[in-house]
């Protein structure tokens, strides 16, 4: 039996009168890349924000690495967060800091007794692995959208997370940069041995990066399985239309 790193059961979340998640069940297994697909506003990002304790569910269970997130106190929650890397939709780089300072920020605050040399070595190694060693002294405003995403991923990897969460990694990027980001997601899994959840509505990204797909519609997962299993025999019209829009000429 494969080891589960994330276990979601009956998760519900509303904002005012709007029910976003209506009893969601999902598992993430160790070493797999799971893609969560869905329309904009379907609650995909809400799901991963609950996973890192940025939002709290109304009911249901969200276990990450065996711990129930909603019951954790600040210290325990922060310890869990160190094991989760979160790559934000807009990269969320600290715009008043250089790339080096951005990457140092989580490292110096969470790993004690590192020398200046060790910090620099770690930063250079990660910038190398995302293909941007020359950007170390640049400000975020001097980077392109794709470069910001890469630096964002490198910043999350600096704490050696076990789980990576990517929120719309290819949103707003050109097709070639999208392909680079997709390759980076696959490379991160192989190089750093992470389990990942990729939130997207881009089927090309989903196909390139995911081992399994989960389609979130109306606050529930309508289909879960491999790309072929989900889309080859899709019964739900909306799941089918997802595929048609991305891959079939109108």
């Amino acid at each position, binding site marked *: 039996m494969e080891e589960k790193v994330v276990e979601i059961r009956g998760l519900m979340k509303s904002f005012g009168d709007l029910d976003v998640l209506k009893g969601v069940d999902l598992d993430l297994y160790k070493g797999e890349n799971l893609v969560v697909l869905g329309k904009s506003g379907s609650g995909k990002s809400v799901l991963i*924000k609950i996973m*890192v304790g*940025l939002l709290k569910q109304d009911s249901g269970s969200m276990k990450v690495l065996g711990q129930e997130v909603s019951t954790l106190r600040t210290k325990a929650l*922060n*310890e869990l*967060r*160190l094991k*989760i890397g*979160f790559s*934000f*939709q*807009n990269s*969320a*780089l*600290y*715009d*008043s800091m250089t790339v080096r300072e951005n990457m140092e*920020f*989580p490292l110096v*605050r*969470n790993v004690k007794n590192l020398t200046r040399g060790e910090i620099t070595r770690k930063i250079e190694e990660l910038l190398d692995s995302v293909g941007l060693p020359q950007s170390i002294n640049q400000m975020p405003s001097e980077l392109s959208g794709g470069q910001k995403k890469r630096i964002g991923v490198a*910043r*999350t990897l600096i*704490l050696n997370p076990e789980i990576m969460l990517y929120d719309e990694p290819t949103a707003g990027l050109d097709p070639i940069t999208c392909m680079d980001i997709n390759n980076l997601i696959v490379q991160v899994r192989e190089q750093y041995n992470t389990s990942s959840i990729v939130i997207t509505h881009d089927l090309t990204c989903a196909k390139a990066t995911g081992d399994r797909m989960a389609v979130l519609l109306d606050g529930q997962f309508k289909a879960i399985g491999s790309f072929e299993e989900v889309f080859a025999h899709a019964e739900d019209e909306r799941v089918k239309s997802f595929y048609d829009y991305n891959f079939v000429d109108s």
Partner: protein
Amino acid sequence: MVGEADDRKPLLSKKIDKFFTGLASAWNFVRRFFKEVFVPPYELKEVIHQCYRIGVESLPLISLTGFIVGIVFTNQSRPSLSEFGATSWLPSLISIAVVRAMGPLVTALIAAGKMGSSIGAEIGSMKVTEQIDAMEVSATNPFKFLVVTRVLATTFMIPVLVMYTDFVALMGSFLSVNANEMVSLTTFFVQVFESISFLDIISSVLKSLLFGFTIGIVGCYKGYNSSKGTEGVGRAANSAVVMAMFLIFIEELLVLQIVNAIRMM
């Protein structure tokens, strides 16, 4: 008629509800500041960086304003005093006005406009672009890094800036007095220091600490609670200035009453 009254009722209660919710949220924000300020880690490097930003970057504007205030106030006071042949009182009058009220007030209002809006906009834009969330998920306390450091910086730097403004305003006043009444620098400052008491200086420093805290905490609160979108950031910056200025005037009034009561004892 009854129907009309009922229609209006929820609107009024909604406003009152919003007012008290806002008040409670602001109170909790201030409480959180005092809870976090004494707990390590102490982000000293960032406090120093913010002190530098607030202090050094405000200097040109504060210098110019303080200097002009000194000259203008002296020139405006001269005709009234000369009617009684009392222009020799100008240094005393200006020093009391500058140290007790003008210096702290002018500095605080300029800092509220410059630093309050800058803090509100900076933190607001960090909120909107998920930078605060990014800090939180990397197991760093964004409140400590962004709010505590900035509030400490404004609290400690405003008194320093006030002393500087007092000095620059008095120098402006001296230039005017020297040009018209031929008073030397030594005579001018002897009169200045004879007129101000220890209570004046202490109350000015304490008032400045309070103003500095207000500018920092209001700017941070408005930025931290800004709603999504660029419009929300603009609104946060704007309301940070308006609210800080309003509170500074209220505080000035309260401190004045307390100091006057002490003076009469």
